[in-house]
């Protein structure tokens, strides 16, 4: 996954939850520390994230989750 695609998931997650900060878990978190990491290194199409200050709202992320319309449209998705 490219960084711009991870950013897209984060923007969508922000709109859904009203949260501005997210914790990314797993391989996609490399984009935060190494913005130039090669796309080929990150083979997954999932972004594992938790809403930073509103963890309960993380459940709302099903709207951009696995098998959601977002997943179907873009080919990647967020999980919680």
């Amino acid at each position, binding site marked *: *996954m*490219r960084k711009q*695609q991870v950013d897209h998931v984060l923007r969508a997650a922000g709109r859904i939850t009203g949260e501005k900060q997210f914790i990314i*878990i797993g391989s996609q978190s490399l984009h935060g520390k190494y913005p130039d990491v090669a796309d*080929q290194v990150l*083979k*997954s*199409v*999932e972004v*594992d994230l*938790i*809403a930073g200050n509103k*963890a*309960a709202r*993380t*459940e709302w992320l*099903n709207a951009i*989750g*696995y*098998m*959601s*319309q977002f*997943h*179907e449209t*873009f*080919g*990647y998705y967020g*999980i*919680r």
Partner: protein
Amino acid sequence: MKVTLRRIGNSLGVLLPKTTLDGWGLGEGDALELSERGLRPAPRAGFLHQELDEIRRRVALAIVAQFKPSQIRAQILANLHRWKRQGVWVSAFDEWRAIANGGDDGELFAAMLGRDENAVRLRQSAPYAGLLSRDEVRKLNEEAAG
């Protein structure tokens, strides 16, 4: 275990034993969920990886139960074609495309339903989104969340 309702200010409440709270992994400030079925710990913010894969398997099972292999293959190829045009591609998609083009139903079902490491990995990048209705996906997520 029975707990007694006690007056707390203008309300009635219960005192929860420390052993119960320890068992639930909860402390002061944590949330409980009150429903018709009772009082229990609020659902966690996320799933464990094993739980996530179980959801993916259930989704795949629901798809296999409702659609013919040819329909699943068509959806896979249509999604992959569109995603590639949009610049979204990972190596697992090459494998799914080969499976979809291969015509071997056993290989398709093994990838969708298998419990081996390879199937778990492939399901993370499953390209059959769009076959189940939003309601069905929501129901599977709710069941998984308990």
